[in-house]
């Protein structure tokens, strides 16, 4: 089981980073989104301070969604999905492997995005790099738990480009609110402690959807 997860994770990471295009295009997409916000929203530093947490997490949602889009694309295109499904690998292992792959991919993007975000919006963010990255990790787990499930669910469908965000974003509202609030706590006051209730909510979200997605992934991936 664990070795299956590991195999899928290693394969996905290898594919992602062998073709660095994939990684770079996602990184540049995130930069472009940050830039668009910088252009569209008022530029004075006071405003940026209050807006920054929201901008950071909306960028996260948008670029994360595009990462999910490509999650099962490779398997779909060369038809290796069927091979994977009829192999003795359990569905649960496929799910956890894919989810881990998405998590690693998004986390690396986040690690590069935090300094950039700090540069463009709120200079103090970089001094909270560790806390923001930890928060990113906690949010990313919840995000990829639902995201991987829904990405697997929509791969077969015709208008998946549009269906995935419609299904995904409303479900992620608790995650978004919690992340924004905790980021405010980190940037403006005493860090995680000041928003302990939200941290609990976020962890509860992660655990719940990790379990639900793990259990329901079987049904999504039936042939």
């Amino acid at each position, binding site marked *: 089981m664990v070795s299956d997860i590991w195999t899928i994770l290693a394969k996905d990471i290898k594919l992602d980073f062998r073709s660095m295009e994939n990684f770079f295009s996602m990184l540049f997409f995130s930069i472009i989104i940050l830039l668009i916000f910088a252009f569209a929203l008022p530029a004075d530093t006071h405003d940026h301070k209050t807006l920054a947490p929201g901008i950071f997490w909306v960028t996260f949602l948008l670029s994360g969604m595009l990462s999910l889009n490509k999650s099962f694309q490779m398997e779909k295109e060369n038809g290796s999905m069927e091979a994977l499904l009829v192999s003795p690998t359990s569905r649960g292992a496929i799910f956890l492997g894919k989810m881990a792959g998405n998590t690693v991919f998004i986390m690396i993007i986040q690690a590069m995005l935090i300094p950039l975000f700090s540069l463009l919006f709120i200079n103090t963010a970089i001094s909270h790099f560790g806390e923001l990255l930890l928060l990113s990790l906690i949010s990313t787990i919840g995000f990829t738990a*639902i995201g991987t*499930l829904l990405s697997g*669910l929509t791969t*077969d*469908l*015709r*208008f998946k480009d549009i*269906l995935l965000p*419609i*299904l995904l974003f*409303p*479900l992620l*509202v*608790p995650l978004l*609110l*919690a992340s924004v*609030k905790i980021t405010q706590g980190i940037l403006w006051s005493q860090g995680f402690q000041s928003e302990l*209730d*939200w941290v609990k*909510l976020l962890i*509860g*979200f992660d655990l*719940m*959807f990790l379990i*639900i*997605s793990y259990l*329901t992934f079987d*049904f*999504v991936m*039936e042939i």
Partner: protein
Amino acid sequence: MRRILGILLIPAIAGCGWMIFFWVPAEASMGIVQKIMYIHVPSVMVAYFSFFIAFISSVGYLWKRKEGFDIVACSTVEIGVIFCGIAIVTGSIWARPTWNTYWSWDPRLTTALILFLIFVGYILLRRFTTYGEQQARLSAVIAIVGCLDIPLIHMSVVWWRTLHQPSTILSTQKNVIDRPLAIMLWISVFTMALLFAYLLSMRIELEQKTRAYLKQIANIY
């Protein structure tokens, strides 16, 4: 059975409407607008109830793989979305004189809106897939995930709001309601529940007929 429901409905709705406008006194501080609560509150309750049924029958479908569960799930979601929409619209109308704006991020309304969007997604998913076992499976998963998310959504929306400004607003709903008003509310909930049961049975029958038809077509080709 449905015929009885239908016959019951006509006097129930007529009576309820009459009572709302002629029997029950207007609420002291709100005036006439408050009467929209007799549509708003039952709609919310019916919407939640129908999503709950969708949850149960989706679990049932994935467990037992009986098509009947899927029929109930998809019918009840559609009706639930309609009632949820009614709840949001009536809530906004009620918000206008109360808070002087049509939309105020009241936690209950916001939760209802998010639920509305989740189950609109469910319906769109069904529309984008074609009738079959896959459609039933995938939409059951969405219904389950969506329903389990409800408590988290509600909690986060309440906190999000209250941390912004203390909710002086909610207290107006929680204060002691006059006796006739409370009775009236229960009567309207009961009427709306009757309406829901009637619509659901109609929708289920329609769905069964559609599917029988689709199966026939599939057999021909």
